[in-house]
């Protein structure tokens, strides 16, 4: 039995120790907002927060996530500046990669609330979007920074 703390809830699941955290979250906890994109940590669709840091859940064996605080897209508050900015700026196309991208951005902004352009590009170079929403992602980040600056809730 593995015990996991996800979005503030404790789950106990009967899975093998080496199962990637991603598949436990998706198939056992039924939190399907976290996506499978590559399985090797290259695309970022599976990004979740582990103790506040953006991590690729597809390459982390579930055992390593025990005892840590895990947050998925479903656990990011609805009024979070990133979620609000993503709707305001109409960032999304197919949307499949976006939960992971939003988790990446949320972690970036909690670490550096006003990232400069270089920091944004370096961080966002680690995720892939195939629809080509890159320019709106950048716009979304700027808007999220503004919303957060005006007292919008930060996780």
């Amino acid at each position, binding site marked *: 039995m593995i015990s996991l703390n996800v979005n503030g809830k404790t789950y106990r699941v009967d*899975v*093998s120790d080496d*199962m990637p955290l991603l*598949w436990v979250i*998706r*198939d056992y906890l*039924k*939190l*399907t*907002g*976290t*996506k*499978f*994109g*590559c*399985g*090797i940590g*290259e*695309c970022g*669709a599976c990004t979740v927060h582990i103790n506040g840091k953006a991590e690729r859940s597809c390459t982390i064996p579930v055992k390593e996530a025990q005892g840590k605080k895990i947050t*998925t*897209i*479903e656990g990011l508050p*609805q009024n979070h500046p990133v*979620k609000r900015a*993503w*709707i305001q700026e*109409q960032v*999304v*196309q*197919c*949307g*499949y*990669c*976006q*939960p992971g991208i*939003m988790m990446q951005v949320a972690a970036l902004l909690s670490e550096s609330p006003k990232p400069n352009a270089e920091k*944004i*590009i*370096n961080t*966002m*170079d680690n*995720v*892939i*979007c*195939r*629809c*080509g*929403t*890159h*320019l*709106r*992602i*950048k716009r979304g980040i700027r808007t999220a920074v503004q919303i957060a600056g005006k007292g919008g809730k930060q996780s």
Partner: protein
Amino acid sequence: MTTSISRRTFLKATGLTIAVSVTPFGFSLMNASAQKEGSFKPNAWFEITPDNIVTTVIGSSEMGQGTHTALSMIIADELEADWKKLRVKQGPASKEFSNPHPTLQPLQITVQSSSVRMFYGPLRKAAAAGRVMLIKAAASTWKVPEEECTAFKGTVTHKKSNRSLTYGQLCLKAAKLDIPKDPPLKKESDFRYIGKPMARLDIPAKVEGTAVYGLDVSVPDMHYAVFARPPAYGAKPVSFDEKSALQVSGVVKVIPAPMGIAVCAKSLDAAWKGRKALNVKWDNGALPQMDNDFIEKTLMEELDKPGSKAMEKGDARKALEGAAKKIKLTYFVPYVAHTLMEPINCTAYVQKDQCDVWAPTQGQTVAQLVAGEVSGLPPDKVKIHTTYLGCGLGRRATPDFVAEAVIASKVTGKPVKVVWTREEDIKADRFRSATCQRVEGGLDGQGQLIGWYHKAVAGSIMKDIAPQEIKDGVDIMSLWGLVDFPISPDENRILYGVPNLYIEFLISGLPVPVDAWRSIQNGPNAFVTECFIDEMAHAAGKDPLQFRLELLKERKGAQRVLQVAAEKAGWGKPLLKGQGRGIAQHHCFGTDVAMVAEIAVNEKDGRVKVNRVVVAVDCGLAVNPDTVEAQIQGGVIIALSTALKEEVRFANGGVKSANFDDYGVLRMSEVPSIEVHIVKGNEMLGGIGEPGVPPTAPAVANAVFNATGARIRRIPLTPERVLAAIKSKKT
């Protein structure tokens, strides 16, 4: 028609429901709520219920192109519905949703950037009929003339007596009325939603992480299946260890099938472990020596073999013989992969007299046909539940993945989800075809283009899906942007006014499966035509913009977008050393697009950096301008990815590329600023999902020439290739 109790119940339950029957000869409107119980019940395009909600039912697949929203906007506008009281629902597989495009009838299929432009007319008529019926219902309630009643934001009002009723209050009464045959349409100047940037209806759920894609489908007692697939084209299994696979805890079945060997299990983890234990040994396949060099060499050799005539105008050979100046150029575009962010997947449940398929599919009709064939059930017993698509790009219109899930479910008797890993998604992809093309062009003494002889070799999309469509060796699907389709209202041919043109085509014999990939072969073909035209302009000593404008005298749409793109980009203004500008235009799916790419080349390492792309697009009426901008930017970005990076690697007769670490796609630091200027000139509506792709790669290649003087007739423009071209120019 008799009014029975059951019919009344039906009406109570549904309210006013408008359906439309689409046929190759047009469409007819139906009041679905007035259909007799037990008789043919058409599927609704929208319904209005007593809770005052308008539900639009969209048969097209939503893959990020915003079609659910755009089609709902058309209905809401013509119906005078309240946008806040509107819900959208994905429609089932049903005849009523078949694509009205003449080349796609009678398929329900979301391809060729066709949903908005094809459904615009029928949806407006259907919604106008609904509006007229609601007004009629209100007028008869109040016993006032219909002309004195107005509909606005989901309410009918009689101003004189200051009375109003909501659509919810009127829908049951309206449902009993006959449907008007030819209801009047609104004036374009009265549009409330169409033409305005509207927020997409699917975005909130996608941002919350609650939107359901194919991979998110969950059915009680669902099992999983993964396939061991041949590592080389044509490879057959020599041996496999079924016993070891079945010993893995959770594995329930091993199924040898035409596309590979399926391992079915209670969990995905167990299925993967079972596949490993299966330890399949394969033979060497059909062409074990095939790698990238072999592919390029083969395509070049095929280019020298006789092909079939695809089109002919004047006498190109004779014109070339008499030309004052001639050039002959060879172009190459490699295979590129789809790498949809949601890997290929499908869930199916075959029962005794029903088959359910949950699929991120672009093609409901073909999915239904294939599932019927594999399950042994008639197609009308197959229910297609279309989920959101994690990108489509044309790949999800081919139902191979549906067949896999249906096979696995049929054999195990369980609902089964088939999941492809990213490695399978790339290795077993049906790629955008590679193509090798040779173009000969001739100019007269005044620098006029008088002859164009074009020969193309490419894979055939139709070979696998509809071989009967290949006529005299010509697969028209490989010739997008070069030759017109016989029954299509769209113009697909080369639009430059050249008096003598000959196009020859040969289907490549390479065993690599190919399929549609955003803009189909318009992408590779426009790379060739637009780079070629640029070289001809240079040979004629003319400005590439002017040369194009002269050759497009009859094409006002193309001229307009070229002029707008050039003007907004500052065409002709000086640039710094090492920088360059390139221009290209292309017409496809009814839309004219032109763009200017501004780039910088690092002459030391050959790196091309695209700094800015300025696009002008004319799709007639831009139904949702915000989506038009997003789709054009997306098209440019994915095309830049092919221009700069993408090329599938092959080895030992199969695909060597495996994942995003060795198949690179464009990332944030490589994305330039992209300005989109919407030009409204064309009368007809054009598509928007794909036309951003074709002019992008040639605009960049032409800009590289402008910056360096080196012509590179092959993508991707990798640093090594650019460096080599610059060096060979200097020697």
